[in-house]
């Protein structure tokens, strides 16, 4: 994986030192909060409901064992012994003390990590397919591109004061596991007619107050032209994007107001002008980065132990049916570790669990870990013969829940248990839904189902692209939950449709249960997923299941 250069190391160490001085000046009173706030946000430090929150970037969701152990140490030493993995492939610490944050940043810098550009109107942490470099269906590993974009955007002088924050997602396969259509720029790798790899470039996607699915601005962009093209998009947006109204400032509104044709015209013109300035240097750098992401040396071994364990242990069989995905190397699998134990907080891992995952990565996983936007941890390269031991270690650490992609694999943002912007809680709703489905013992029968919960209109929980989306609102001083149906975050992305009136906190879980049981009654057979049934039948029978009193 990517190794920090001296430049990178100095940069993050200096930033931590600078912030140490700023914190000292805030505490001794020489900086007011108004003066200090932009500095702390630049370093990923937010003030939440009960404490500060430090958001640490995990670029393109990739980290190694040493980094995971350091996160475990930080959680233990300066927080409450756990961390929360987010839909942005970041980790958040919910309880740091202001005076400790500089030490936390130093500890991060020791392993080449930081909290820079996790906030502010800049190009944010670039997210990527969490199966990058491993997926069987991949054209090429998208992380070198993500890293190139990170280097290009970090402290880019022109783009430190964009109209609004700017998020880029990249995937290396045509299957979209990075929700590229809900980002300011989405880059989906495709092949052209000649079989060459390039990117379908998507702009103007985004969730939040005004959810929009991104539109294709360029169906095929050669990889070599990526930086000037992305720079052209950001620079057109920088000029055209609205600064008069925060709610209309994202590029999705710019695209919506001017139309994709006009935006394309401007971007292509700007691209022509910029192209010559991007000489071979960026290609050279890309070459160097690619070398750092060279695939590990995959081993050759018998897969007999895997087959034997599947025969012998029904629990292992169930876990391997649910939590493994096809790997590009023969005899290997991608193992997803669920952070969604029924009743637990989605995305949370204790320090002890982080250490177990780090150890497994080191011993069985070519020292690689990934964080998915679905708030799980991935061991991207595990040989099948090692999986029985991996599974046993996960079980001992309470990390072996076999529910990836199922009803209880719920995305939930922190909501009003932590987030200062929230209008309602999301965590308890996720906990109760997962426990309910565990009690019903139906989720394996229900099959693929994505439930996503946000605690406010900002949609960090991606509810708009959940097959079932839940949005927590404040209705006249009471928590109220609105359901959307039929959302999709994949390459066939669409925004879910509002089902009808919201539900009170004590009525939302029964409502979801009615909805899902309704689906079971409606589907043609077990192979028809919730989303397929919804597309075949439309919303009406699902609404009837949700609101029985109305259709009665």
């Amino acid at each position: 994986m990517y190794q920090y250069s001296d430049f990178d190391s100095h940069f993050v160490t200096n930033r931590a030192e600078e912030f140490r001085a700023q914190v000292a000046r805030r505490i001794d009173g020489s900086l007011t909060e108004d003066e200090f706030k932009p500095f702390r946000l630049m370093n990923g430090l937010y003030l939440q409901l009960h404490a500060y929150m430090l958001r640490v970037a995990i670029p393109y969701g990739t980290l190694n064992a040493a980094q995971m152990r350091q996160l475990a140490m930080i959680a233990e030493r300066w927080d409450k012994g756990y961390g929360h993995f987010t839909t942005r492939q970041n980790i958040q610490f919910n309880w740091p003390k202001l005076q400790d944050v500089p030490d936390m940043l130093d500890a991060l810098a020791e392993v080449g990590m930081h909290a820079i550009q996790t906030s502010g109107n800049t190009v944010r942490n670039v997210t990527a397919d969490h199966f990058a470099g491993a997926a069987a269906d991949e054209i090429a590993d998208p992380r070198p591109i993500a890293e190139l974009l990170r280097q290009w955007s970090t402290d880019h002088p022109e783009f430190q004061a964009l109209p609004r924050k700017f998020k880029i997602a990249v995937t290396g396969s045509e299957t979209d596991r990075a929700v590229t259509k809900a980002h300011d720029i989405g880059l989906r790798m495709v092949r052209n007619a000649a079989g060459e790899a390039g990117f379908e470039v998507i702009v103007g996607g985004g969730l939040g107050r005004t959810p929009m699915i991104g539109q294709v601005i360029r169906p095929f962009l050669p990889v070599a032209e990526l930086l000037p093209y992305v720079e052209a998009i950001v620079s057109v947006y920088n000029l055209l994007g609205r600064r008069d109204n925060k709610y209309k400032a994202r590029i999705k509104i710019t695209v919506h107001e001017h139309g994709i044709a006009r935006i394309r015209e401007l971007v292509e013109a700007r691209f022509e002008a910029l192209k010559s300035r991007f000489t071979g240097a960026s290609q050279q750098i890309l070459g160097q980065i690619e070398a750092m992401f060279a695939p590990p040396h995959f081993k050759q071994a018998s897969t007999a132990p895997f087959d034997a364990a599947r025969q012998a242990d029904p629990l292992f069989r169930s876990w391997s049916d649910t939590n493994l995905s096809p790997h590009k190397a023969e005899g290997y699998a991608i193992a997803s570790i669920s952070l969604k134990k029924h009743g637990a907080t989605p995305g949370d891992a204790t320090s002890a669990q982080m250490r177990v995952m780090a150890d497994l990565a080191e011993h069985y996983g070519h020292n690689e870990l990934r964080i998915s936007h679905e708030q799980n941890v991935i061991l991207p390269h595990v040989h099948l013969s090692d999986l029985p031991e991996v599974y046993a270690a996960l079980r001992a650490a309470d990390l072996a829940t076999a529910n990836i992609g199922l009803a209880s694999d719920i995305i939930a943002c922190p909501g009003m248990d932590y987030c200062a912007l929230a209008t309602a809680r999301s965590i308890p709703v996720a906990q109760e839904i997962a426990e309910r489905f565990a009690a019903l013992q139906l989720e394996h029968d229900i099959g693929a189902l994505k439930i996503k919960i946000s605690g406010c209109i900002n949609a960090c929980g991606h509810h708009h692209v959940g097959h079932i989306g839940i949005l927590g609102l404040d209705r006249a001083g009471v928590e109220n939950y609105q359901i959307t149906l039929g959302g999709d975050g994949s390459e066939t992305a669409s925004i879910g449709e509002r089902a009808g009136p919201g539900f009170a906190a004590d009525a939302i879980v029964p409502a979801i249960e009615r909805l899902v049981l309704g689906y079971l009654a409606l589907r043609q057979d077990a192979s028809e997923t919730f989303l397929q049934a919804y597309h075949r039948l439309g919303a009406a029978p699902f609404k009837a299941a949700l609101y029985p009193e109305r259709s009665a």
Partner: protein
Amino acid sequence: MPRAFTPKVITANALLSGDAVWLTPEGRWSTELSHAELLTDEAQATTKLTAAEARASEVVGVYLADARATANGPAPVHFREAFRARGPSNYPHGKQAEAS
């Protein structure tokens, strides 16, 4: 018609811990909402708010929150303030840990 003034408490987050705190009648910052001073007079609330805002080396984000009187001191009106007063619901952390 101007809206009638409803009782308020002065609240903020502590500068170092970030924890939710309330201003007591003695002018201390307490982590317990029930220790807060309930302000029933609008002019007094405004004056006290301005004074509290000046205590920038102790707290961040001072504001007036609705509260109602109970036998055990002020209690929250809105659920957001109730959560601030209690702590998160998924773990017994924050104030709940201190209380136990």
